[in-house]
């Protein structure tokens, strides 16, 4: 054991000196940080202002479109206000938070805020709680900016000729002058004068569907960016419906109220304790949390398997193995390598966990945040100990296979042919990872749980779904037994293979080594 310890110590110390290890350690938190921060940053900073022209020849729709897009902007502003409050204001300690009603940042919240005084009201309420070093609030840039038609175009020209004349601007061949800058046009919305006749009604033939009239024409070169189009569509159709109510003699205001009427539906989880069964939005996220652990398990197992393989092959290809074997038995060498690299893996995972806690804690400012809900779950649930257990057992099993492969190969290239089949096997849990949470105690999940190579991943995946105890205990026992058998067989292959030179043996030959008595 002393010698295995010495081997393990060297493996550990030498591996954590390698660049690959540190890249692994820092890559994960970096990706975590970037994936949580960059999209927000991009949305805030890097999205350019979209300029559009709106030509309304019918005269009835321009104001509703403008006001709808205005509301869109206000929602964004409210969201920014909420973020600002979360970041720079101390939490409310006494009494209710008057700003809590705006947390959803939807149309109703915007209406409520507008009724109370808009942004100024919000900031005034926030003022006493603001931290000392809080910067002043910066309103988000306007995403959609209307611009007037180019001067040489006539707003009352017919739609086809307007479209023709706007093409060069939309293609980016010509620019418009707005606010002293040359800007390029993202979209043109052309509402023809006969728009009323193109309205489609159920049980009635479309009145004037013809080649000349398309309804509203939305011109844009970028088809993936559909937000503006959706806003316009909704605003116009809301207005069309409002007019339709009026035309049919109904009360549009009443209808608006009706539209806001609803019965709440609450999701309840029978597995939660009485009084706390209500499913919150965070609970859904928690259901997916095990998947994150499965992924982590996969990445870490895959990563350190590679290290184990290259370290084993290094000793073979560098001819160090023989002098080692005059000092340690193959068994001691194998165990030393296995545990040395296990320690490397645990170090890396601890670093990752640490960074997860740091990132989550930094982001877990408000109670509404998902991070704030994940953190206590991570701290109290059995997820972390389960992860540690399955990591170790999974590692022992895959590690045994890797050591057997490494011991019979002289170069990484030779090892690739064996490794490719192992990698293929390892892809299975990755592919089923997203299906299992949907039916965590279903047939697929249960079958995969009982296959030792997949047990760690599948059981981790089912962790939040309280699988039957027979699955929990049975698969665990099977996994431990399989890991032990894998290690025993690997030991036999390792002992014979490690001194071998030349072509790697065929599988049949290795099976012979395993069956051979001592």
């Amino acid at each position: 054991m002393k010698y295995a310890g010495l081997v393990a110590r060297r493996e550990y110390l030498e591996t954590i000196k390698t660049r690959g290890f540190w890249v692994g350690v820092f890559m994960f938190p970096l990706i975590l940080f970037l994936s949580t921060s960059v999209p927000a940053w991009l949305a805030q900073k890097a999205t350019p202002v979209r300029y559009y022209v709106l030509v309304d020849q019918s005269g009835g729709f321009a104001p509703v479109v403008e006001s709808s897009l205005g509301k869109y902007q206000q929602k964004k502003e409210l969201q920014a206000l909420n973020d600002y409050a979360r970041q720079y204001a101390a939490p409310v300690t006494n009494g209710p938070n008057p700003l809590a009603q705006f947390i959803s940042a939807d149309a109703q919240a915007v209406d409520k805020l507008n009724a109370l005084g808009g942004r100024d009201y919000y900031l005034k309420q926030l003022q006493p709680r603001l931290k000392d070093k809080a910067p002043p609030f910066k309103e988000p840039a306007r995403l959609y900016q209307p611009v007037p038609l180019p001067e040489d175009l006539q707003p009352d020209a017919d739609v086809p000729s307007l479209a023709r004349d706007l093409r060069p601007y939309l293609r980016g061949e010509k620019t418009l002058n707005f606010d002293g800058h040359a800007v390029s046009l993202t979209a043109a919305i052309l509402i023809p004068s006969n728009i009323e006749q193109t309205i489609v009604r159920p049980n009635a033939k479309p009145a004037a569907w013809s080649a000349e009239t398309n309804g509203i024409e939305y011109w844009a070169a970028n088809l993936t960016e559909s937000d503006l189009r959706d806003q316009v569509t909704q605003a116009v159709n809301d207005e069309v419906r409002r007019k339709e109510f009026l035309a049919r003699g109904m009360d549009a205001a009443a209808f608006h109220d009706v539209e806001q009427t609803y019965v709440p539906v609450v999701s309840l989880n029978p597995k939660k304790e009485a009084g706390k069964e209500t499913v919150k939005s965070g609970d859904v996220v928690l259901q997916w949390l095990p998947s994150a652990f499965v992924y982590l398990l996969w990445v870490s197992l895959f990563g350190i398997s590679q290290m184990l393989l290259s370290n084993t092959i290094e000793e073979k290809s560098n001819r160090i193995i023989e002098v080692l074997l005059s000092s340690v038995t193959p068994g001691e060498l194998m165990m030393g390598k296995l545990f040395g690299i296990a320690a490397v893996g645990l170090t890396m995972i601890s670093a990752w966990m640490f960074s997860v806690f740091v990132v989550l804690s930094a982001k877990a400012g408000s109670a509404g945040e998902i991070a704030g809900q994940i953190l206590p779950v991570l701290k109290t649930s059995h997820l972390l100990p389960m992860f540690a257990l399955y990591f170790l057992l999974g590692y022992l099993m895959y590690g045994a296979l890797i050591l057997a492969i490494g011991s019979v190969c002289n170069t990484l290239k030779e090892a690739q042919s064996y490794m490719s089949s192992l990698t293929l096997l390892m892809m299975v849990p990755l592919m089923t990872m997203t299906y299992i949470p949907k039916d965590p105690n279903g047939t697929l999940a249960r079958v995969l749980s009982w296959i030792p190579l997949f047990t760690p991943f599948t059981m981790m995946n089912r962790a939040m779904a309280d699988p039957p105890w027979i699955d929990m205990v049975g698969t665990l026992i099977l996994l431990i037994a399989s890991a032990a058998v894998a290690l025993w067989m690997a030991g036999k292959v390792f002992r014979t293979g490690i001194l071998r030179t030349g072509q790697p043996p065929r599988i049949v030959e290795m099976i012979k080594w395993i069956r051979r008595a001592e």
Partner: protein
Amino acid sequence: MPGQPTILNAAMSTSAPNGSAPLELRGVTKYFGEFKAVDDISFTLPAGCICGFLGPNGAGKTTTIRMILDIIKPSGGSISVLGRPSALEVRERIGYLPEEKGLYKKMKTWSVVAYFATLKGMSRSAAKLRAFELLERYGLKDFALKPTDALSKGMGQKVQVLASIAHDPEFVILDEPFSGLDPVNQQVMEDIIRDMAARKRTVLFSTHVMQHAERLCERILLIARGRKIFDGTVPEAKRIIPPRVQIETADDVAPLRELKEVQSVRALVPPGPGASAPARWELELHESADPQSILQFCFARGIRLHSFNQSEPTLHEVFMRLVGPEAKEAGFR
């Protein structure tokens, strides 16, 4: 093949300081499948001597050494190392330099030496001190803190030798320690071996360069095709080849052929056309013959000698005589 000489070890000390020979092989045999790599080798190595382990390529030297170190198990026979059935039981007291030599490329030179020393039971602090001390003594001080892939091949090999003896073992096995070394470092290697012997360590090293064996060894073990051919001291080995004298004369040597001491007469430089130029002859004598009697005979018969040279056979000649024909066809391994 000439008859196998019987060597008696009785006169020699066969006891290690702890009372048993460093190495004892009894009827050791090794099969690889159908192939008999080592065939019934018995051998006892007395303590404190330098023994050359000789044999042509593919003779089974490395296999034998691996069995001695318990890296592979013999198919038959028994091995005792420092009195124990397995070398691993006494691994702290054994040093080994394998034929295939390699180092961890990214590790620092001192820490490779120290690592192997700790695997041999030294404490980490002692191993570190020892590593720096050895590297300094053998001119590698400047490389101690560099990774081993900065070393040249010869330096790397020196580092390995140092790694294998850093724990000051009482029994050292070196497999082809001279291969790949330049003459200067071959000399360093010889010094290392002599130094160990001077401190009463037992050294077994394999080589197929006979000059090294001849300069260093007190004893040799010669094997070919897995079988022991010779086992004994160097003078004993040389006695296998009959005593020879070389003479230079312009006269007729025919009378020498009649002598009972003379086995054969061979012309090294045949007589020239003019009888005045001396020819060189080699006379092979019978084992017990006294070369001085040849000299007396020549005087008596009036054979005028330009030179008379009584040359001792080299180990190379012994080797060629014993295993030359086999070595030629030994391409297998």
